């Protein structure tokens, strides 16, 4: 029961690795542009958890700062991403990335 009562670094790292895996899975298998962007957010948050956990157990402030900046930039990226997706929907009447493929060699 040690593993359940004492939360250590490995618990955080496992969660973040799982999140990273889910995010990557979503990016690779989903067709909807919005869901792909959600997968990207999962990857970013996995990195966030890593930074915070390492910061807690290594005892420095850099990780906390890093994750704050990641949160802000993720928001900026989401704003631009949604603007582009809305424009895509106006032009293609769909946000399915497999349908948006007009350029071919």
């Amino acid at each position, binding site marked *: 029961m040690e593993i359940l009562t004492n939360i250590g670094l490995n618990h955080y790292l496992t969660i973040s690795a799982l999140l990273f895996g889910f995010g990557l899975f979503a990016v690779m298998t989903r067709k909807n542009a919005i869901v792909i962007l959600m997968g990207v957010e999962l990857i970013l948050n996995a990195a966030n958890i890593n930074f915070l956990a390492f910061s807690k157990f290594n005892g420095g402030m850099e990780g906390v700062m890093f994750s704050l900046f990641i949160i802000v930039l993720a928001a900026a990226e989401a704003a631009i991403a949604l603007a582009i997706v809305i424009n895509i929907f106006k032009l293609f009447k769909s946000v399915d990335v497999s349908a948006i493929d*007009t350029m071919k060699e």
Partner: protein
Amino acid sequence: MFQLPSGAEIESIIATLKSSVGFFVPEIWLSVLFMLLIVVDLAVKGRKNNLLASVAALGLAATFFFIYPQHSLATGEIFFGMYVLDEFALFFKYFFVISGILAVLVSVADEQLNRDVQSIGEYYALIIAMVLGMIMMASSTDLLMMFLSMELVGLTAYVLTGYLKKDARSSEAALKYLVYGSVSSGLMLYGFSLIYGMTAETNIMKISAELALHGYDPLLMMLASLLILAGFGYKIGAVPFHFWSPDVYEGAPTPITAYLSVGSKAAGFAILMRFFFVAIPHGGEPFQDIAGLDWLMLLIVIAVISMVYGNVVALWQKNVKRLLAYSSIAHAGYVLLGIIAMDELGTQATLFYLLGYLLMNIGAFYVVILIANRTGSENLDDYRGLGRKMPLAGAALTVFLISLVGLPPTIGFIGKLMIFSALLAKGSVYIWLALIGVLTSVIALYYYMLIPLNMYLRDSKQPDEDRDRTPIVHQVALAVLMILTIYFGLFFAPLTDFAKASSAMFGLSIY
């Protein structure tokens, strides 16, 4: 857990910030210019495309005035090790400002951009922001600054790619660029977090010292290097991370394609060199030290596939922008060869090659823009017979393509020569790499020469006997680029000396 800083500590922090600002003047000027362009756009009514372009170009030219005095400043870290000022960073400051000026120039030439876009207001401001971001990419020495500057370049590039809002291809390109870009920056961040976990540092010099002192798990290091390489490799457009580039290059407005293919690619190389040369431990000679082998092997594999894939797939392309996209993948492979040599000669060759690539690639896209103004298309078949109707553009494109192949007497030849000789100077280990480079250049000869073949030796299907209507400004600018490409192929000593002086990187110990 964390103590509030005392009054004396705050005083010293403020003193450091104040002393660092003096080393940061060109970046501050670019930020001012960015805001100035937005204000000019708001204040002036009516059609102002040329006004904004000239403000942007003059402002960028004024940046040289702020960069040049920095040569006399002391090399070193500023802003608590977040940022660095050294000859390597200064080289890229010049490089990105020149590429920004050329990007403004080709944007003025593009009729489609100036006709179809209702408001060009933010366009030039975003180009300035991208110059700023790329300069910061080349100078950051902290994982946090690296991430922030890469995102600054990335986010502005997504917007610029999708700038033709009503054009489906442009929007599609923006979406693809965005999806691949955000995934690869996510992967890179995860790699950064692993590095931070191993060392508890974010400054690359301190990371290097920490890894050398305490050692590390090779498997974890390999994983982290691979993830970080996904982020950098996406910026340089090398093979496993290249999927975005053909579609983005074809769909984006052509001036932005030209700008991305040179600027953002060079920024990727700058950050890749600084990160891998400084942060990850290496034992001087490659192959003597296992730690150095990790990422060097990765780079060799990437370089070889990039050269082969880019050159072979380009053979079947019918769209000239797409063809140049595949050729730019191949060129990423050639530049990586210079990095693999991992010594002063190799860095010098890499920097020189990037300078040459700036001239010849922007030049080639310049001609593509001028031809698209006339024919409204970028298809290879529509280039038929244009050599006689647009004599200057035809001659210039031929020169740029010869330079891209790497034939004398052009700057591209000297660049390839320097890269291959840097590899051969390392002894027999890299002969096979240089050989692959030479052989793939021969493949490149075929698809590049298809364009002059169509322009000069085949007749066009539609009768089109208009005379050349290219404005005189663009004719002169194009002629200057063409002459420079040949001139520096013959008298290359100033540029090679400049590249040699610029290969000094702060905190570097491999050569």
